[in-house]
């Protein structure tokens, strides 16, 4: 990210220490700026770097009370335990399953939506559609969870409609049956985010030079050909960047959403890594084991990000870094 910002020429400023290369004088000259920057650094140390020292509990047996430094070292024991944890298989499968399906189904939808939105002839209607479809992004998962539990209840609208159409005879308890959970999570996530995810593509499309379209039209390209050979290729860079970020997020599987929709009955398909880390840590008090699972997840997620980055770099020269 930094490298790209570097295209701007350095701005010459009449700094006090210039020429004399006196570091202290220079620092004094920018003492207000230094103080402002250092407050930011202080925040990062206090709320981002200091919590990391607690990662040592993954190598210790810490039960939650007293000083961490007093607790005994256990080496890699908790990490070995991850491989023997029977629930882990389920948890990893759910995480990857939900994330991959969200990626495969959810990732192309905003692109297609933006392409078709761009084909609307009325700019006014275009704006209205945008305003409406962005809205769900700003609702919290708690609210959406409230809507979903209402809709999917035994007396809910979904059962009513399906029974009215004669598709089912008995009401189904959707949130209590594990086999429906992935469908619910993936479709509600798409409902909430497809419009918002399209905004970046819409902005990119707005930046495409009209001359490209004119040239394509003169060459006899029809509507779909312009979409396919002008609009879509122009989005390649944007798509790549967002794809990298999505792959880097594959282990995250939307904690806020799943925590709201998960219950004890659907646990076999709803327990994902982040939820598991939360439950074994906070609810069961297995602090050290939870920290070990969280650490492994963090390391793998970063490796995935690097992998996706080098992949898109090779395929089409777009990359995050």
């Amino acid at each position, binding site marked *: *990210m930094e490298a790209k910002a570097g295209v701007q020429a350095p701005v010459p400023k009449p700094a006090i220490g210039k020429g004399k290369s006196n570091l202290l004088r220079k620092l004094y000259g920018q003492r207000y700026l230094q103080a402002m920057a250092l407050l930011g650094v202080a925040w990062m140390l206090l709320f981002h770097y200091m919590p*990391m020292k607690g*990662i040592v509990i993954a190598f210790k047996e810490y039960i939650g009370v007293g000083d961490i430094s007093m607790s005994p070292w256990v080496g890699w024991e908790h990490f070995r335990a991850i491989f023997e944890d029977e629930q882990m298989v389920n948890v990893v499968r759910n995480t990857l399953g939900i994330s991959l399906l969200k990626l495969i189904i959810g990732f192309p939808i905003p692109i297609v939506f933006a392409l078709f939105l761009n*084909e609307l002839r009325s700019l006014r209607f275009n704006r209205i559609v945008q305003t*409406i479809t962005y809205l769900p992004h700003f609702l*919290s998962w708690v609210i959406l969870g409230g809507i979903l539990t209402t809709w999917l209840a035994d007396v809910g609208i979904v059962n009513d409609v399906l029974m009215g159409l004669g598709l089912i005879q008995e009401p189904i308890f959707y949130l209590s049956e594990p086999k429906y959970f992935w469908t619910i999570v993936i479709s509600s996530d798409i409902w909430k985010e497809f419009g918002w995810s399209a905004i970046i593509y819409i902005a990119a499309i707005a930046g495409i030079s*009209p001359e490209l379209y004119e040239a394509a039209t003169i060459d006899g390209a029809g509507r779909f050909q312009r979409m396919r050979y002008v609009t879509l290729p122009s989005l390649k860079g944007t798509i790549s960047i967002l794809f990298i970020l999505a792959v880097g997020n594959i282990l995250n599987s939307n904690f806020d959403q799943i925590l709201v929709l998960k219950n004890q009955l659907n646990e076999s398909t709803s327990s994902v890594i982040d939820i598991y880390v939360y439950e074994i840590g906070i609810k069961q008090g297995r602090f050290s084991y939870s*920290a070990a699972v969280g650490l492994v997840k963090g390391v793998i997620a970063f490796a995935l990000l690097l992998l996706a980055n080098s992949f898109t770099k090779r395929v089409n020269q777009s990359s995050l870094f």
Partner: protein
Amino acid sequence: MKTRDRRTRGDWIFDQFNVIAMLIICFATLYPIWYVLVNSFNDGTDAMTGGQIYWIPRQFSLENYVTVFQNAGIMTAMGVTVAKTVIGTIIHVFFTAMVAYALSHRELVFRNVYMFLGTITLFFSAPLIPNYLWMRDLGLLDTFAVYIFPAMFSFFDLIIFLTFFREIPEGLEEAAKIDGANDFSIFVRIVLPVSLPVVATIALFHGVWQWNDYFTGLLYTNSADLQPIQTFLYRVIAQSSSNQIVGATGGAINRTVTSQSIKLATMVITTVPIVVAYPFLQRYFVKGLMIGSLKG
């Protein structure tokens, strides 16, 4: 749209399909929200016993809302949410912008070190439990401050500010410098006022996050009077502790409200501020996002 060519017959059919598809999408987006709204304005007992209500209230009633507004617990939670959103957003925007302004100066000594430290925060952070333990050690558990300080800075937002600040003409700052103003007062008096679009964008995003965040309240607080409305609703919806609501209504003075109808009314009240503020801020965030996307 961009090229005003003559429409062929195929084009015409495509346009009709496209418009219809977009109308269906808009309907699918709005209807679930409409459904909650309609049911929250319907008599609770009637909604429970009289069958599904699809389009308009069958037995219009304000009783659900009256009950919610008389409920001290819900009102306290509402107050916590408003307080943390307003205070948290002001501090977040001011602090992040301030650091960004300092880092927007290329001649700043150690700038690369500061930027490196910040970039790391985008990719690594402590897992949940170490983070929780550190909040405990800082004494932030079960305090209002836990909503504010851990969220007062974001390096991601800093990058968006940074990109914007670089576009500000040098002359503005130089003139103030000649008048003897220091960098901090230049930031407050000159830079912030000319940066309204980006300030509004970050304020919107952070404000929405503060408003919608239920997990901070769930994880770090226990006291009922520190519980934001979203955390309250989470407990009602996900943990089905609807007795929290029914109990709070004073044993249901009248029989027309149900825990379900009160839940819907609370959801509406919780969502209204966002829906009302949203169209006003939309023009800013579209612009702000484009600034953000320029950095690549």
